[in-house]
């Protein structure tokens, strides 16, 4: 369909999906789910992972029907230009909001850990410029960022061996004390953290070897799920219940008990390194939203990224309070839940129905 697309290998799908799932969410997710499902929080994560893996499968079967189309184009094909554009606009707004939530989420974390007194707008500006610089390199560079960011930060998992010293197994017992509705609430609340797999809808046209994508995206989803599961289980075992409820970022508080002979207070380094973790998220979300803007308004992507960044920058001047932020993350998570946990199923059925109608007539 298009000739000027730069293709990347299918295995990159693993890195893109995984890195866009892991971001600010994982730092706080154990507490958020713990509030709903108590010590069975880890089950909510597993359920959520299972559900996402099914959704991913549905997404790929839809995408395979429209080869080399991203979601924006599929919308236009399915619903026509006008209705499609309305839905696309909504999706673009969602991605801008998600991008923004990551930026303010990180800034809040960083201000708490050692950067008190720094201007929020300054930090936003820095992160936005960094993202623009990266995204202007095109898809190949973004894929590279996902890959390198994964390599550069995955070792943080091994730092967790130190908190393992003071875990108490009794805290996770008894298993399955939460009711199914509590578990489901946990799944619902986990959406903000688990989101990121939806990028598959948009990166699919850029990938080679389409038959391998299912494998790599499932691998990514399960790897993420296991990582989040691991961090949740450790934080449940590490913190006592009331303590876990207090900490905004339990994982960071847990890393604060890590120290090495040559470095004390490792959490300060971890917080700084977290920029590399959120960097792929920012790049991918900016790329996808600018692609949407191009689809709807026919604005060139290289101008689109500037427009979107300016919007984000201006918004960042208004929301600065901790409480507002929390509400905002919650809302992004909720919208994301309906948009990417529920909507893909509908979309799939609509496309099946539509193709049946067409084949009949």
């Amino acid at each position, binding site marked *: 369909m298009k000739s000027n697309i730069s293709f*990347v*290998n299918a*295995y990159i799908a693993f890195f893109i999906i995984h890195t866009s799932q892991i971001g600010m969410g994982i730092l706080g997710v154990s507490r958020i789910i713990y509030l709903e499902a108590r010590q069975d929080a880890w089950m909510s994560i597993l359920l959520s992972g299972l559900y996402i893996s099914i959704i991913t499968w549905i997404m790929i079967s839809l995408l395979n029907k429209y080869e080399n189309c991203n979601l924006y184009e599929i919308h236009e094909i399915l619903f026509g230009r006008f209705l499609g554009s309305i839905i696309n606009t909504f999706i673009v707004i969602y991605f801008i909001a998600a991008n923004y939530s990551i930026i303010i989420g990180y800034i809040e974390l*960083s201000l708490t850990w*050692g*950067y008190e007194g720094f201007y929020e707008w300054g930090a936003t500006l*820095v992160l936005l410029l*960094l993202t623009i*610089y*990266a995204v202007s*390199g095109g898809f*190949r*560079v973004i894929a*590279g*960022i996902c*890959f*390198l960011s994964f390599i550069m930060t995955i070792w943080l998992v091994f730092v967790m061996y130190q908190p393992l010293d003071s875990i108490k197994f009794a805290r996770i017992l008894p298993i399955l004390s939460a009711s199914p509705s509590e578990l489901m609430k946990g799944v619902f609340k986990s959406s903000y953290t688990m989101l990121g797999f939806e990028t598959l809808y948009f990166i699919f046209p850029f990938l080679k070897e389409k038959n391998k994508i299912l494998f790599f995206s499932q691998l990514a989803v399960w790897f993420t799920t296991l990582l989040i599961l691991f961090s949740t289980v450790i934080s449940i075992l590490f913190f006592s219940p009331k303590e876990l409820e207090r900490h905004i970022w339990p994982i960071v508080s847990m890393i604060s008990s890590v120290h090495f*002979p*040559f*470095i*004390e*207070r490792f959490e*300060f*380094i971890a917080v*700084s*390194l977290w*920029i*590399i973790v959120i*960097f792929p998220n920012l790049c991918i979300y900016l790329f996808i939203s600018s692609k949407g803007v191009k689809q709807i308004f026919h604005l060139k992507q290289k101008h689109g990224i500037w427009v979107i960044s300016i919007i984000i920058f201006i918004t960042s001047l208004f929301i600065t309070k901790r409480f507002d932020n929390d509400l905002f993350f919650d809302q992004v998570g909720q919208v994301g839940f309906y948009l990417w946990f529920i909507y893909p199923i509908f979309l799939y059925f609509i496309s099946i129905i539509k193709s049946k109608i067409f084949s009949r007539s």
Partner: protein
Amino acid sequence: MKIHLNKNNCPNYEKIKYILNESPDLMCRTLEVGGDCLEVIFMKNLIKHEFLNEYVIKYIQQLPIEYITFSYLLKNIPMDEVKTNFDEQEVISSLLNGFVYIYLSVESKAFMVNCTNPIERSIEKAETESLVYGPKISFTESLTSNIKIIRQNLKDSNLCTDELEIGERAKKQVRIIYIKDIADDDILKTLKERFEKIKTDDISDSSVLAQCLEDNHYSFFPQFILTELPDRFLYSILNGRIGVLIDRSPVAIIGPANFLSFFESTEDIYLRWSLSTFIRFIRLFAMVGSLLITAFYVATITYHFELIPSKLLLIIGQSRSQVPFPPLLEALLLELLIELLREAGARLPSKVGQTMGIVGGIVIGQATVEAGLTSNILIIIVAFSALGAFMAPIYEMGTAIRVARFPFIILAGVWGLNGIIIGVCVLMVHLLKLTSLNKPYLAPLYPLRIEDLKYFLIRLPHHFYMRRPTVNRPLNAIRTRWKSKKTEKDLDEF
């Protein structure tokens, strides 16, 4: 000689003299042949006089008159390179290249013979890339002898040395060297297109040429490997890269380069694999350390003193207590001092240079600490980072790292650890964007080619190297067919 000059007889000489702006070097020798004359025009400083005397003038004078014709001379003159069919422009450039112009006024025909006397130095040991182990021969300024070295080391009929000329005014010969059945055609095509785009008066050296051929002119990082070692050159060519040699430069250009190839040395191949793997990791570690350690010091002292272990805290604190500058300024000052010493040491004659090192290292270092201008911890750190930058086997990469250190220090002084990480992100994006001859710069790392890592990141025993690295997309991928002689023996068998 002026006696022989006759304006009517030598129209060519006058014309050439006019074009060459009355150059005093231009000579014209007129030989009497029967009634006619035979003009021999040449630049007196550029030719080898024995050649002209023995094989041109003496030879012609010995010949019986009837043999002195254009066709006979052209066929029988005892010189290897003879030119006919040239236009006026070519006459001039050939004269400037050391040719001799011979004009037979009877037949109004001319030909040129090559009596060049190039300035050559003998082949010596490599200076900038010194090896402990392995061949030590290096390229010289003469293209002919460089080609000779290459040909002698690689007697392959598929070794192509395509000739190009570059420079509008000062024309220079350039050779593109590759192995036809290994090198990728796309890369070759890109390189040749790049050459076509260069429109300039003069390319003074191969490093200038390399900068003209680069993909991104603004980058800190070199995008071609510059080497003066023929064995490194050949190793690269055999792995599917393309080399460029330019006349009057002892440094060869190799492309496409990738980031890690600047950290490999040919010595790695000569040494045992375990040692060379270790050394490569040390080099990479030194590179990262050299880039970040001063910045890390500045960030910790300025913003994150929490990170310092309690045992170290008092030592650093005490050495900092007298320093009147903020850490950022202190670090920049000391880094500049080291650069100053290095530059002065490089410019001075080698005997004085050594004293400079001692003066700088001991006297100034000691004195600044005692005066309380810097802390001695920082001296150690800066010394380490200076050493680390010299670990890169390719000089250009070392300089790139030295320069790239400063933005990191400033970022660390402004934003602390987050600043360093932002710097790392920018660097990461930059390296991802960078290409060399349209091939990704971070190649075996991203796009990931695991089987290539054994070439660029680590070394393995030699029988693992059956195939050429795939980053250069070699046409003929098989390198060796290793015959395994191992037969399974039981423990009690001999």
